[in-house]
């Protein structure tokens, strides 16, 4: 069955959010659990010099997706949007989004069928 433009757009945004959310939380985990100990225990600062900017860019990508979800309308409740915004400022909040975004993706796909 052909998807409407609106359904396509919604599904694409949810998928972008899922990826950005996972990458943001994962890069923070790598930064804190691997790069920072390497720097302080072994004096190897190269890992933080790489992972710091990578996590920074991942955070911006996630924040950008949330701004688009907030300003772009679509099937988002105020509560869901608040949760996405809060997750940006809580360490590993991206992992906490996984369930919500998985359910949203499943619902968006079911809505197309």
């Amino acid at each position, binding site marked *: 069955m052909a998807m409407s*433009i*609106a359904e396509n*757009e919604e599904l694409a*945004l949810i998928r972008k959010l899922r990826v950005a959310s996972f990458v943001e939380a994962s890069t923070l985990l790598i930064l804190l659990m691997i790069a920072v100990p390497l720097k302080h225990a072994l004096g190897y600062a190269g890992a933080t*010099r790489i992972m*710091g*900017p*990578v996590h*920074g*860019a991942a955070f*911006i*990508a996630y*924040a*950008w997706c949330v*701004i*688009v*979800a*907030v*300003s*772009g*309308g*679509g099937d988002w409740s105020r509560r869901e949007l608040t949760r996405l915004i809060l997750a940006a400022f809580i360490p590993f909040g991206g992992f906490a989004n996984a369930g919500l975004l998985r359910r949203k993706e499943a619902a968006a796909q079911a809505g197309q069928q």
Partner: protein
Amino acid sequence: MIDYLWLKAAHVAAVLIFIGGLFAQAIGVAAGARGGTETVSLVSRWDERVTLPAMLAVWLTGAFVAATGAWFPSHWLWAKLFFVVALSGIHGVQAGRLRRLRRSDEVKPSAFPFAVLVAIAASVAAIALLAVAKPF
């Protein structure tokens, strides 16, 4: 040193592409809110394929330049970051408005479409001054 210069060159290239896309996006949103559907389609395509990747490249290369050059303690960098965050925020809001226009949702035309363009131009000028003159 060569790595630093290459990184900086990549950063400046990404900034130029991002800023050009941001102006095009602002004009596309203003035109779309007044019924220009073909403009919305063209600007949206450019935005997703070029401007958004350029914005991510700006942040990634910029962070590497700042880390490599040890610029993080400098005050001018944080002042510059304020404007870069603002421009990235404007891009996100306008991308949301383009999304609404593509869905054929009604988007109220801005009463002051010029104001967004002026805000972008002023931010870009401030970024250039801070990055080149490094006044503090």
